[in-house]
């Protein structure tokens, strides 16, 4: 009969009227992002970093940028470490490339900014502010590190 489908549809919407709602009341209730969440910015544990640059090489879009200096032991140390979230594809390749597992995602996802500069995060500076710095090593006696 013509009109049966219309009534069925109305029945469905009417039933839905009284069902439980699925709204997530976002700013009041923070979403559960899950353990494997990929997003936010890079959290760098500076004390574990060996400044190998593999994360920079793994990045498809040049969003992870770092520079190194040689320290007294002729060992590479981080000079800068920048995560440009505006370029980031959130592909996880940098995290997987890290041999010492010293980078991971933060769960801050609300990163919008009025300018592109606001999307560039200095991860090393953030690490310093957390007090996470590499303990300065005494010059080693053999000094033969290449």
């Amino acid at each position, binding site marked *: 009969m013509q*009109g049966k489908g219309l009534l069925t*549809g109305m029945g*469905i919407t009417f039933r*839905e009227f009284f069902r439980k709602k699925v709204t997530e009341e976002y700013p009041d209730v923070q979403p559960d992002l*899950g*353990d*494997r969440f990929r997003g936010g910015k890079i959290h760098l544990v500076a004390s574990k970093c060996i400044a190998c640059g593999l994360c920079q090489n*793994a990045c498809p879009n040049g969003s992870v940028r770092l520079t190194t200096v040689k320290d007294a032991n002729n060992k590479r140390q981080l000079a800068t470490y920048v995560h440009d979230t505006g370029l980031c594809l959130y592909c996880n*390749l940098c995290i997987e490339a890290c041999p010492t597992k010293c980078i991971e995602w933060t769960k801050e996802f609300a990163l919008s900014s009025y300018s592109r500069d606001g999307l560039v995060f200095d991860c090393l500076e953030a690490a310093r502010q957390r007090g996470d710095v590499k303990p300065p090593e005494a010059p080693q006696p053999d000094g033969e590190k290449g």
Partner: protein
Amino acid sequence: MQTQTYELNMGPQHPSTHGVLRIILELDGEVVVKATPVIGYLHRGIEKICEGKTYGQTIPFTDRMDYMHSMNNNLGLCQAVEKLMGLEVPERAEYIRVIMAELSRIASHMIYAGALVNDLGGVTGFVFLIRDRERILELFNKACGARMTFNYIRIGGVQQDVPEGWVEECRRFVDDFPEMMHTYNGLIMGNEIFQARMKDIAILPPDRAVAMAASGGVLRASGVNYDVRKDDPYGIYDRFDFDVPLGTKGDNWDRFIVRMQEMEQSIRIIDQALKQMPEGPVMAKVPKVIKPPVGEVYHHVENSKGDLGYYVVSDGGMKPYRWHARRPAMVNLQLLDELCRGYKIADVVAILGTLDPVLGEVDC
């Protein structure tokens, strides 16, 4: 009476062009005389960009082509490279890939149906579909931490195994799916207005569909039985028992209903895959630097939009010499003009909806 046709620019900013598609409509009153799609507003030059990336780095870019069915985009590229390298993928990874690709197909078809219903003015159907799609995205989020651009399927396997409890949750989704389908049947497919809007509109004959290289639901709605999963089984698709839904007429209604039935078939595949899935590793032994041998490969997979092909040329280095994707949505979009002619403006959005273009893929 002397009348004149006039031109109407539909898009690139328009509520129902599914992104930044522009259609130059030549209209006679409300009747379409000619519809010229203009694309390229979302062109990012992915093919050129990928020539400068390593093979592994090109996978995230495929996510951004058909962002509704990203898992399958990953899958196609990875299998193409694996084919070139002659790489065997572990069993468990194969099953996870199939489950992910089919879940992703359902999610994509949900967006497709939802957007189409929304274009026809039925907002509630759209919201219901989006609501249920959320459960799939949640599954993806649990498995790889991303809801849309996954980069989960990798050359040689998948990024990591699914977490504890994931299989059970996926199983619950599979069990709940018939009820969801029942709701859609009642609200959308059973609705007489919706049927009147869709039936006998924009008929595409099968021989024309083949000649225009249409694929996916558009081709199958015309009754041509071509599904890459069946005709050229990739991965382990030959192990599953599923049907290829076919249309009879090739009108809007067939193009819609074929995909709705495909969702049910995908559920069947997931169901079997969940039952058969073995334990084991999820990543093959892959060298750190992937250097396929000199040569070239073309591999195609069945995307939710159609026949998605990857053509990868290797010069033996770590970066592809040439990287090309055959994007089904772009090919299907060619049909827009001939399908729209003689129908009304309101039908243009419906036809566009049934062709299901994702502009990220069309423009690439």
